[in-house]
C-alpha cells in the first residue's frame, strides 16, 4: 500500500499542467503540523502502507521535511521524495540521506534552459542539473521525470541523452494527464497523434542504441488509447493520498469529482476512513458500475477506467471512462483531440496558457462565482 503525503500546495514553480486543485488555498495556515503528519504516518503504517511519497506542491518548502523523513524511515517506510529540486542544496541532500531517504525524483519541465524556464515559470535548469549530480554523488538512487506536452514532446531524445549524461538510472517520460490545471489548458497542451508517435519512436530508438544502465519509461496520454487505464490500481485498494490540510483521497485527483465528501484525518483515524468511509467504499470493486461496464468481460481488468476522467468528461462519476471505445461518450475524446488540433493550427497564442499560481487560482474562483 502506498501513502502519498502532499505536504504543502506551496510551490515556487507554476507548471500549467499541475495536478493540484484549481482552488489553491490562499495561505498555509491550515496545513497539517509535524505532529499531525507523524500520527498519520503511524496510522498508515499500521494499515500496511510501506511506500511513502513526499510530494506537494513542493515538499521542500516544509522546513520539517528532514524530520518527517527520519521518523518515517524509522517506522519502516520506504521514503521517496518527489521534487522540482527548487530549495534543494548539498546540505539538505546530506540531511535527507542521513534521515534515510531511499529515492529522489527530480522533475524537469524541458530539456534545455529556455523551455524549462518557460513552463516551470522560473530559471531553474542549471540548478536542477547541479542537484541531480549532487544527489548521484551522495549515492542516493535517483529518477528523473520529464512531463510531456505539445511544446516539449519533441525534446524526448534530447532529454534522454541529457539524463544519460547526468548518470540517472531511471527516467520517466510522463505525458501530461488531463485533470485540474492540465484540463483547463488542454487545448494548448495536448500533443497530436503524430507528435506522440514520434516521441515513442525516439524512446524506442534510444533504448535500442543504449543498452546501458538507464531505464526509460514512456507514459502515453490516455486520449489516444482505445481502452482506459485501471483506476489507481483499484479505488481504495492501494493508494491513500493525504492533502496538505488532511483530506484523505483514494487517488490524487479525486477532488475533481463534484459532490464527494472527503474525510479528514483531523476528524477520524486513517483506519476508520480506509475501512468505513463512504468515499473509500464508493467505487471499490465493480458493484457500482453501470452499462456498458457492468456486463463487460473486461471489467475486472480495468475496473471501468478512471472515475475522475469519467466525471470530468461526462459529468457522471459512475459512467464508463470515455477513453474506452465502448463508451457511448467516447466521441468526447475525439472532440478534445480535434479542439486541441484546431487551437494549434490557429497559432499558439490564440488563448494563452494559464499558469498555476495563487493569483490565477483566485481569478478562476472569481469567474466561477
Amino acid at each position, binding site marked *: *500500500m502506498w501513502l502519498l503525503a502532499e505536504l504543502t500546495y506551496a510551490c515556487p514553480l507554476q507548471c500549467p499542467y499541475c495536478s493540484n486543485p484549481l482552488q489553491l488555498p490562499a495561505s498555509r495556515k491550515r496545513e497539517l503540523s509535524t505532529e499531525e503528519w507523524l500520527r498519520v504516518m503511524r496510522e498508515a503504517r499500521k494499515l*500496511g502502507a*510501506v*511506500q511513502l511519497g513526499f510530494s506537494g506542491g513542493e515538499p521542500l518548502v516544509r522546513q520539517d521535511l528532514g524530520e518527517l523523513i527520519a521518523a518515517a524511515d524509522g517506522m*519502516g517506510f*520506504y521514503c*521517496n521524495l518527489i521534487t522540482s529540486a527548487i530549495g534543494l542544496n548539498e546540505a539538505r541532500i546530506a540531511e535527507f540521506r542521513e534521515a534515510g531517504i*531511499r*529515492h529522489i*525524483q527530480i522533475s524537469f519541465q524541458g530539456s534545455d534552459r529556455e523551455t524549462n524556464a518557460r513552463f516551470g515559470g522560473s530559471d531553474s535548469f542549471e540548478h536542477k542539473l547541479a542537484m541531480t549530480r549532487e544527489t548521484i554523488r551522495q*549515492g542516493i*538512487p535517483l*529518477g528523473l521525470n520529464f512531463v510531456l506536452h505539445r511544446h516539449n514532446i519533441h525534446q524526448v531524445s534530447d532529454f534522454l541523452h541529457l539524463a544519460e549524461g547526468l548518470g540517472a*538510472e*531511471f527516467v520517466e517520460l510522463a505525458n501530461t494527464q488531463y485533470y485540474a490545471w492540465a484540463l483547463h489548458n488542454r487545448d494548448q497542451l495536448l500533443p497530436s497523434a503524430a507528435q506522440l508517435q514520434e516521441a515513442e519512436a525516439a524512446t524506442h530508438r534510444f533504448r535500442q542504441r543504449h543498452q546501458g544502465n538507464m531505464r526509460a519509461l514512456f507514459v502515453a496520454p490516455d486520449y489516444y488509447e482505445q481502452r482506459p487505464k485501471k483506476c489507481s490500481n483499484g479505488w481504495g485498494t492501494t493508494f491513500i493520498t493525504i492533502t496538505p490540510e488532511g483530506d484523505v483521497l483514494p487517488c490524487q485527483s479525486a477532488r475533481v469529482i463534484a459532490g464527494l465528501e472527503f474525510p479528514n484525518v483531523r476528524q477520524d483515524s486513517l483506519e476508520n476512513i480506509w475501512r468505513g468511509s463512504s468515499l473509500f467504499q464508493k467505487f471499490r470493486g465493480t458493484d457500482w458500475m453501470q452499462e456498458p461496464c457492468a456486463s463487460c468481460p473486461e471489467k475486472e481488468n480495468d475496473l471501468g477506467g478512471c472515475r475522475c476522467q469519467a466525471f470530468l468528461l461526462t459529468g457522471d462519476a459512475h459512467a464508463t471512462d470515455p477513453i474506452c471505445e465502448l463508451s457511448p461518450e467516447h466521441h468526447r475524446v475525439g472532440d478534445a483531440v480535434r479542439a486541441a488540433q484546431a487551437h494549434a493550427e490557429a497559432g499558439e497564442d490564440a488563448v494563452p496558457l494559464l499558469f498555476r499560481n495563487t493569483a490565477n487560482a483566485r481569478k478562476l474562483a472569481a469567474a466561477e462565482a
Partner: protein
Amino acid sequence: MFDHTTAPFRLNPRYRLQYEEAQQCQVLLYPEGLVKLSDTAAEILGRCMEPITCQRLIAELQRDYPAADSLPDDVREFLSDARQQDWIVAAEG
C-alpha cells in the same frame, strides 16, 4: 555487468529488506513497489547488507545450515538471478 562469482557485491541500496506484518514475510522494497521473498532468498540477501563475496557467503551458510546438501549450487543460482534483477550490485573498492 560485474561477475558476482569473483567480485564482492552487496544489496543494491535502492532496495530495502524488511519483514512485513501485512505480507507475513520478508520483502524487498524499491521505488515502484515491493517483492515478497522466500525464506531462503531473505536469508541470503540479509547477509548482503555489507560487501561480501560468493565464496564467503556460501561458507557462512554452510556453517549455519550444515544439513543443506545442494547449498552451494542453490546460492549460485539465486545470486545470478538476483544480479539479473539488479537486487545485488558490485561493491566498490
